C-alpha cells in the first residue's frame, strides 16, 4: 500500500491522475502534462515533492561527519548555502545523489530521493557513529512544495518578506511564507529558476492553496511527476535509478567534479574513487536527439552500424525541441552514425552536448 502525501486531498480534488512512485501515491499529471511542462518553461508550475527525504545532521561535528560520509566538502559550505553531492559505497558506487543545505554552523539538512532516503538515513547514522552528532530522519514531518518557472519569484514575493532577490541559486534561508515557517531554497530540478519550500506537514494544504491563488493570475499551474521528468530530462539532469546507480561511480556518470579529493581526511569511497579517477571512461553519458518521431525509452539499445554501442537511460518527447530526446551511455568514440533500436527498427539519432535546454538568464 503506497503512502499518500499531506496534499492527497488537494490532488484528488483537482482530479489528478495518481501513480505509485517509490512507495508513495503521487500526482502524475493534473490534466495535460504538455501544458504543465509549458507552464513551467513560460510561467510557473507548482509541484508536490513531499516524497523526498529530509535527514537532519546536527551537532558540534556535523560538518566533519558529512565530510567523511559524503563525497563533497561540506565543511567548506557557508551557512545558508547548499551543495549538490553524492553518497557512495566503499567501491565508489553511487547510493544516492543529494542536496545538502547548511542551515547553521552545526546543522545540516540532507535531501535524498524518495526511493533511497531510508538507506541514506541508515548509512549516515552508521558513518556518523564516532562523531559527536545526531542524525535524525524527519521525512515524515516535512512536506515539500516547489514553485518552478520564470515567474516563481514574483509570485512567491507576494507571500513573503524574505529577501528572494538576494537569495542565490543553491542557497536556502528560513522565512515566513503566508505566515507559515518555511525553509525557502532556491533549488529545483526543472532547468528553470524556482524555489523549494520545506514546511511542516500541517502547513502544506493551506500553503498550496495560497500559492495557487497568488500564482494563477501569473499562469501558475499544478504540475505532476510526468512533466517534472520531461523538464529535468531537457535540462540534462540525472535521475537516480536511470542515469545513476550503485554499479556506477560519479566519474562513470560524468559527475566526477562532485568528488572533492582535496578535502581533509578520509571519506567513504575515497580509495576506490582515487583508483579510477584518471581512467579513460569506457562509456560516457550523452544526449541523443531523434531525427524521426519515435521515442527512445529507458533500456533501449544504442547501435552503430548494427552493433550495440550503448543503452538509453531516459527518453521522452521533448516539447521544447519538438523532437524525441534521450540520455544514454554510449561507448567512448562512438559519436556519429548512431541509432536507437526502437522495438526492432533502428531509428537514427544525433549526438548532442548536454543539456538539451538551457534557460536564458
Amino acid at each position: 500500500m503506497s503512502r499518500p502525501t499531506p496534499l492527497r486531498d488537494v490532488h484528488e480534488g483537482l482530479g489528478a491522475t495518481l501513480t505509485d512512485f517509490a512507495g508513495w501515491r503521487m500526482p502524475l499529471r493534473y490534466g495535460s502534462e504538455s501544458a504543465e511542462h509549458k507552464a513551467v518553461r513560460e510561467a510557473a508550475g507548482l509541484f508536490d515533492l513531499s516524497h523526498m527525504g529530509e535527514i537532519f545532521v546536527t551537532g558540534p561535528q556535523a560538518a566533519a561527519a558529512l565530510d567523511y560520509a559524503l563525497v563533497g566538502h561540506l565543511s567548506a559550505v557557508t551557512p545558508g548555502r547548499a551543495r549538490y553531492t553524492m553518497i557512495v559505497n566503499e567501491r565508489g558506487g553511487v547510493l544516492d545523489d543529494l542536496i545538502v543545505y547548511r542551515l547553521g554552523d552545526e546543522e545540516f539538512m540532507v535531501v535524498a530521493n524518495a526511493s533511497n532516503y531510508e538507506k541514506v538515513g541508515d548509512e549516515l547514522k552508521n558513518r556518523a557513529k564516532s562523531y559527536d552528532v545526531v542524525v535524525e530522519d524527519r521525512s515524515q514531518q516535512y512536506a515539500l512544495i516547489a514553485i518552478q518557472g520564470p515567474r516563481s519569484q514574483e509570485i512567491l514575493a507576494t507571500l513573503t518578506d524574505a529577501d528572494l532577490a538576494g537569495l542565490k541559486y543553491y542557497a536556502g534561508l528560513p522565512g515566513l511564507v503566508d505566515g507559515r515557517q518555511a525553509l525557502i531554497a532556491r533549488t529545483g530540478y526543472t532547468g528553470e529558476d524556482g524555489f523549494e519550500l520545506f514546511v511542516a506537514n500541517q502547513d502544506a494544504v493551506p500553503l498550496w492553496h495560497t500559492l495557487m491563488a497568488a500564482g494563477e493570475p501569473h499562469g501558475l499551474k499544478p504540475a505532476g511527476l510526468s512533466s517534472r521528468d520531461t523538464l529535468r530530462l531537457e535540462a540534462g539532469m540525472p535521475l537516480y535509478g536511470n542515469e545513476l546507480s550503485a554499479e556506477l561511480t560519479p566519474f562513470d556518470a560524468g559527475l566526477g567534479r562532485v568528488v572533492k579529493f582535496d578535502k581533509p581526511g578520509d571519506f567513504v569511497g575515497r580509495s576506490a574513487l582515487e583508483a579510477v579517477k584518471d581512467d579513460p571512461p569506457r562509456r560516457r553519458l550523452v544526449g541523443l536527439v531523434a531525427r524521426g518521431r519515435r521515442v527512445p525509452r529507458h533500456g533501449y539499445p544504442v547501435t552503430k552500424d548494427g552493433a550495440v554501442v550503448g543503452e538509453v537511460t531516459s527518453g521522452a518527447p521533448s516539447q521544447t525541441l519538438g523532437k524525441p530526446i534521450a540520455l544514454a551511455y554510449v561507448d567512448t568514440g562512438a559519436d556519429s552514425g548512431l541509432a536507437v533500436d526502437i522495438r526492432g527498427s533502428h531509428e537514427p539519432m544525433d549526438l548532442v552536448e548536454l543539456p538539451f535546454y538551457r534557460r536564458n538568464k
Partner: protein
Amino acid sequence: MSNIPEDLSYTKEHEWVSGVEDGLTVTVGITAYAADALGDVVFVQLPEVGSIAEPGDSVGEVESTKSVSEIYTPVGGEIVDINQAIVDDPSLANSDPYGDGWMFRVRMEGDPEDLLSAEEYAALTSGES
C-alpha cells in the same frame, strides 16, 4: 468516468469500432479511456493503405510522453483509409477520440474478433480503474 458512446463496439485492447452492422467498412480508433490512461499522445503510427491485416494483428502504435502501446485491428481485411490528420496532429487522440481522432478504416472480411458492447466495455474499464 470516461465517455463511452452507446452506438460503438469496443475491444479489450481499448479500441472502438464503428460500422460493424453493415458488414462492409469499419472505422477504428482508441477509446477516451485509453487516451486518458496514455496522457498526451505525441506520435501515432498507422498501417499502410492497401495492406491486409488479420483480426488481432498489431497495425500501428500510439506514443505518449510516458509510454507506448500498440494498436490492434479487431477485424481482418484490407486497410482502405487512414486518418492523416491524426498523424499530423496526434493530440486529436486526446481531444476527440471518437470523432476527428479516428485512426483507420478496414474493408471487413470474415467475422470480427469478439467485440464488446458499450455496457460491457464500461464494466471492463470500471474494473481496471
